[in-house]
């Protein structure tokens, strides 16, 4: 296990190296950051001087080595538009995204587990058909239409929920990093629409996944045997069958959580939610390349971590899986 963790950490470092290298080699196609820093009437000469000062004209290798050297000291560069260390900017935006994903993950778990199981156990019931139909519909509507549709109904038409932003937040650790919306009524109100919008695209996937896995398990010899043994249906459903559906569900959940972190861009854009996706799009549109590279490196490491955790969890749920990947 220990060797496995070490190996994964080494791999993670390698992944980040490759990401930063790729990031560096494509950064020139993002645009010229100097353009966003100066007004439109600044002469090309002044702009060139500024690019020189920022070290943007140095050869590729010089820039990359400089980046690596600083990275060793935990410095991933300085964001041009926020004028702060890129890592700090990212860490300050991360809680918003984490809370958004957490909120929707909560909604997904609360609804998809019972609904998924119910539809598997009673596939022919009217309610099951309704749930399946509705979830299929949910997955078919693009998220930004869902989001703006919600805003249209709940904020503009009925005036019951706020239309944008995070509302009133509380500084969780008192150091300005983690602004939480979970502790105020206003903050929670602001969470509702974005979380449901984000959940709406993921939830159907889980209901369907749980349903199909559950149905599959219910058909296995092992369940039939348990039934023949005369175990109560409740016990069979919740203990035996349920446990066996968890493996693929956890896998997909892990992947999806990872995806949600990096791809909340659309939801965050529509709701003006100040998270990482929002920050990323802003950085692309304003060519803040040093922030972008730091972002890529951070997201890359998040992926490696999430996948490692998922792989470890495999081992716990299904001991027959070779966790470390050795034969």
């Amino acid at each position, binding site marked *: 296990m220990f060797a496995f963790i070490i190996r994964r950490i080494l791999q993670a470092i390698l992944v980040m190296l490759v990401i930063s290298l790729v990031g560096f080699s494509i950064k020139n196609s993002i645009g010229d950051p100097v353009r966003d820093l100066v007004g439109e*009437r600044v002469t090309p000469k002044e702009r060139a001087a500024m690019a020189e000062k920022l070290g943007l004209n140095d050869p590729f290798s010089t820039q990359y080595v400089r980046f690596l050297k600083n990275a060793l000291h935990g410095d991933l560069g300085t964001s041009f538009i*926020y004028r702060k260390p890129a890592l700090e900017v990212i860490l300050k935006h991360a809680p918003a995204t984490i809370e958004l994903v957490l909120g929707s993950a909560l909604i997904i778990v609360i609804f998809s587990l019972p609904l998924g199981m119910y539809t598997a156990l009673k596939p022919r019931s009217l309610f099951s058909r309704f749930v399946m139909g509705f979830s299929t519909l949910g997955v078919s509507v693009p998220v930004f239409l869902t989001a703006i549709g919600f805003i*249209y109904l709940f904020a503009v038409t009925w005036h019951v929920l*706020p*239309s944008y932003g995070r509302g009133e937040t509380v500084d969780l650790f008192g150091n300005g990093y983690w602004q939480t919306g979970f502790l105020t009524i206003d903050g929670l109100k602001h969470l509702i629409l974005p979380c449901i919008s984000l959940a709406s695209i993921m939830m159907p996937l889980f209901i369907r996944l749980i349903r199909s896995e559950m149905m599959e398990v219910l058909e296995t010899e092992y369940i039939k045997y348990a039934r023949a043994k005369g175990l109560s249906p409740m016990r069979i459903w919740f203990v035996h069958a349920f446990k066996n559906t968890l493996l693929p569900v956890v896998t997909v959940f892990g992947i999806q959580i990872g995806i949600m972190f990096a791809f909340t861009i659309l939801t965050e854009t529509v709701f003006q939610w*100040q998270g990482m996706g929002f920050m990323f799009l802003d950085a692309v549109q304003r060519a803040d390349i040093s922030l972008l590279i730091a972002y890529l490196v951070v997201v890359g490491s998040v992926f490696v971590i999430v996948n490692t955790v998922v792989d470890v969890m495999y081992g716990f749920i299904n001991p027959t899986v070779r966790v470390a990947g050795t034969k």
Partner: protein
Amino acid sequence: MKKLVLCVLSLFLVLSFSVGAGAKTLKVGLAADPVSLDPQVQLSGGMLQLSHWVFDPLVRWTQDGQFEPRLATKWERINEYRVRFYLRQGVKFHSGNDFSAKDVKWSFDRMKKSVDFKGLLEPFVGVAVIDDYTVDVVTAKPYALLLNMATYFFAMDSEFYTGTDENGEPKDAIKKTTHTFANDNESGTGVFVIKSYEQGVKTVMTRFADYWDTKSVGNVDTFILTPIKENATRVAALLSGDVDVIDQVPPQDYERLKSDKNTSLVTINGGRIITIQMNGNRFKPFKDARVRNAVVYAINNAGIVKKIMKGTVEVAAQQSPPGYAGYKETLKPRYDLKKAKALMKAAGYEKGFEITMMAPNNRYVNDAKIAEASAQMLAKIGIKVNLKTMPKAQYWDEFDAKAADMMMIGWHSDTEDSGNFSEFLTMCYDKTTGMGQYNSGYCNKKVDELTIAAQSEIDLKKRADMLQEIEQILYDDAAFVPYHWQNHAYGALKNVKVKPILNSMNFPYFGDLVIE
């Protein structure tokens, strides 16, 4: 005793003011928020807006294009090179320091060091302090636009910004990409004091208790500014009542804001000309004035204004908007498909040709849609357009590289004067002087001569004749395709009286805003 009475009186005044006005909070959703608190770090619309809230200029523009005294109470021209400004007395900075002539000089000197402003300040020699409340502004050549430029002279608190900060950096340093004292701290004389500033998230301002302009009718006590980038979300935020005022209302939502019972729409002429330039160096046929004319005749800019801009802007046939010295009334929009076809035939391109066009998609109002409509219109005279639109971050690179045969560019005159348009858009591109920086191919020596001559002509009548002659030449040459002058569209709740505080420069004076 006298002091006590004064104290009681002022306390009474303060109390009655706050009770009478009923501490109003204003929530504003803007498409972009200020990038810094340093008024001299960037010359952009957003930064100038902030400057008008937190600082004060010597004079400022009124809605009808006149100068309104602010920190300068009056001014007079001493000679061709010199204008004297008499400064307001008893003005306090947010730090508590008193405002005087030295702050004006200090701020000017600092501005001269700013990468963004130094180009604009080229005509100036400097500011001379005459006494504590009198300064002379001196230019190198006779300069007709001195007052226009005085709208940029915001006073910073020289004492507050002198010395070094906790990192040992000088407090007056101007840096765009790293922390500086001035980027995160302010002391101006303006109506609002920054309470908290988190870039891209929220800026909170409160009314300055010692503000000099006690005659202001404004009753906003707390001013909360949130950037809301996405157009639809910004409109939704206003419709749901989450904010009181929004800017940059997209034209397609004008009707909605007008018809909604809670909101109103205010549009005000903006003076930013939207054009598409034809590059004759890249694509030879555009060297032929007949072909350029054919393009201008083929594009129905009135139709674009009616349909894409919802009829709220003025159709353009020249650079200068009405009211500018160079505006020539006889120049009318040309749209005549038959004439366009005839011109193409005369130039030998009856069968048409294929060209490339580029436009930004997040810089001007409906920029990509204007380009798309133009492509449709050009198809009707046989010009096949390969159109590529992109975000401005990538677009400026392409523009600098002059990567397409036709490219879109919009321009707002820095000086509210016609000459500025020609200097940037239509003078022959010259690397050394920096003229024609946003000109992608047109060149006419006569335009250059006239523009340069107009710079130092202080006889306003003669100057206007020169500027109008430029417009006539550009019109005959079809130097570019003119579309319209972009306006500023604000949406507000009905009880927020936003109309009186707007102006064509797009500096909403929220200090004077009345909320009922």
